[in-house]
């Protein structure tokens, strides 16, 4: 089933970590397997990035043979390769014993950096961006938020996902949101199923893109990011996706300064929208939006085939 949520503060910032935790926790019943957050703050300067990566799956970190040494070795390999690429580590933070957040100064090719780091066995980059920090792990929203200290994350906009695993495993790799490798700051959450996934994926692979998972949601992220990279604006790319991506879906996509929503032509997957002058909230269920508003608000369902994009 899965639940998705998005929020954007137009012209301001707030504690989006706490808000998104509250929204996703209210939809825990839609999927308790894993929870993910894509949180956006004011962008760093052009040459500075935040890279979130993991060196093991949570389950592996708890029970793998000689795993502590292996994780240390994997992290050391990441550090070494960053140094080889002239990426300077400004700040390094261990979010958990298997997940890290690095602030980098880097002026090279982002695709080369991402590919070189992920070439290390069992290392996966969760996100790279000037504004984006992507966190995902097993458990409900409160558990993940507490584990990664997201309750004091100040930012402009966010998307999130509570997952009920159906067609892929219960692990961090298969959790949402998906970062659109190798494009900085693009992330996606999705509720639904794409039925022409493999055809679309092969087309993107022929164009040089790699996929980290077999999850159809990752395809949306790469599809849109590729279109943006080709010069298309976000709204136009999303509008085109309605025709080209087959299946039933509602998805949210975020860039460094935008939040977008798209619904398939059958309107088969839910989405409730609240919009005011300075805030927009979207979720699979209204109860999520209401979890951050104590007072009565007016909400509505966007229609079939509808695409909307909001600016920070």
């Amino acid at each position, binding site marked *: 089933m899965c639940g998705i949520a998005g929020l954007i503060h137009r012209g301001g910032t707030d504690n989006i970590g706490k808000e998104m935790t509250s929204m996703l926790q209210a939809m825990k019943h839609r999927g308790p397997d894993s929870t993910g957050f894509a949180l956006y703050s004011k962008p760093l300067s052009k040459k500075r990035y935040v890279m979130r990566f993991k060196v093991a799956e949570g389950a592996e970190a708890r029970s793998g043979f000689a795993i502590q040494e292996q994780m240390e070795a994997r992290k050391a390999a990441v550090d070494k390769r960053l140094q080889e690429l002239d990426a300077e580590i400004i700040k390094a933070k261990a979010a958990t014993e298997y997940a890290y957040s690095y602030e980098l100064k880097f002026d090279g090719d982002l695709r080369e950096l991402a590919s070189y780091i992920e070439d290390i066995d069992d290392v996966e980059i969760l996100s790279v961006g000037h504004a984006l920090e992507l966190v995902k792990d097993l458990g409900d929203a409160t558990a993940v938020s507490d584990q990664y200290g997201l309750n004091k994350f100040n930012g402009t906009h966010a998307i999130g996902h509570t997952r009920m695993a159906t067609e892929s495993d219960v692990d961090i790799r298969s959790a949402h949101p998906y970062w659109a490798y190798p494009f900085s700051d693009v992330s996606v959450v999705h509720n639904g199923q794409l039925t022409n996934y493999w055809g679309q994926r092969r087309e993107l692979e022929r164009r040089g893109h790699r996929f980290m998972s077999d999850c159809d949601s990752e395809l949306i992220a790469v599809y849109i990011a590729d279109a943006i990279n080709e010069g298309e604006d976000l709204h136009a790319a999303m509008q085109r996706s309605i025709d080209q991506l087959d299946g039933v879906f509602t998805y949210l996509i975020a860039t460094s300064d935008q939040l977008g929503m798209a619904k398939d*032509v*059958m*309107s088969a997957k*839910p989405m*409730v929208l609240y919009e005011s002058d300075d805030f927009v909230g979207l979720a699979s*269920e*209204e*109860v999520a*939006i*209401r979890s951050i508003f104590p007072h*009565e608000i*007016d*909400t*509505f*369902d966007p*229609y*079939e085939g509808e695409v909307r994009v909001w600016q920070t």
Partner: protein
Amino acid sequence: MANVSEHASHDMGMHTEQLEGRTQQVFFSATEEENLSQPFTYDVDFGREAEFDAREMASGEVNSKIKDLMKDGYGSITVRNPGAKHSVAVGILNRLNLVLDGSLGYFGCGLIDGPNIRITGRVGWSCAENMMAGTVVVEKNAGSTFGAAIRGGDLVCKGSVGARTGIDQKGGTIIVGGDTGAFSGFMMQRGRMIVLGNAGKNLGDSMYDGTIYIGGSIEDLGVDAVVAEMTPLDCEWLGRKLSLFGLEAPDGIENMTKIVSGKQLWNYDNLEPSEKKLIL
């Protein structure tokens, strides 16, 4: 409780003789009250009023509280802060004046048979699904599958609704003050649907029967849905019905578009009435 004599029970087609099946014997006495009453229904007094706050309650607790109040004879109940919870006010099978002061989540007011319900906020997907009788009035917007498979009563949304409104509608009246999404009236079988605003694509797709009235534009009609002539009877009925809820057609009732089944898709006319009944 009705006092029904044995003679009356025979007139009503009921019998008191023992059935002679090997595995089952059914005994019926017209004097036994429980045989003539609906289970889970309550005699309530509309003059007795109660109110409670649902903010900290789970959906099941809200429904239990409503049931307990009905059991105690309260006929006018107000629920504050329903907070978009799911499946609130479902399965109410007797007359009741119920005000839900706020918004509901999914499946609100489903399977009801008789209450008058007013929701001051919005409702999520599948509001009043399988409603059999009574009135539900939503003051703001509604999600998709509004009034799915309703069989009777009046279901009103004063704002706009999502897709597939009245899918599989089997009776009753659905009224939408604003717009409705795609596939509204899909496989409609009986009843009437009134939309004062615009309708999305595939309106009335594969409808068997029933009537849809649209006040605004129609993106396109579904398979076997056709435009029919508005008659004075239609206009009179629409005027009467809309006035009950304080609603008006923006361009006048006489300018509304009437949609019915073309009856080309389903070949009912070759069927015997008993066969039709089996299908429906």
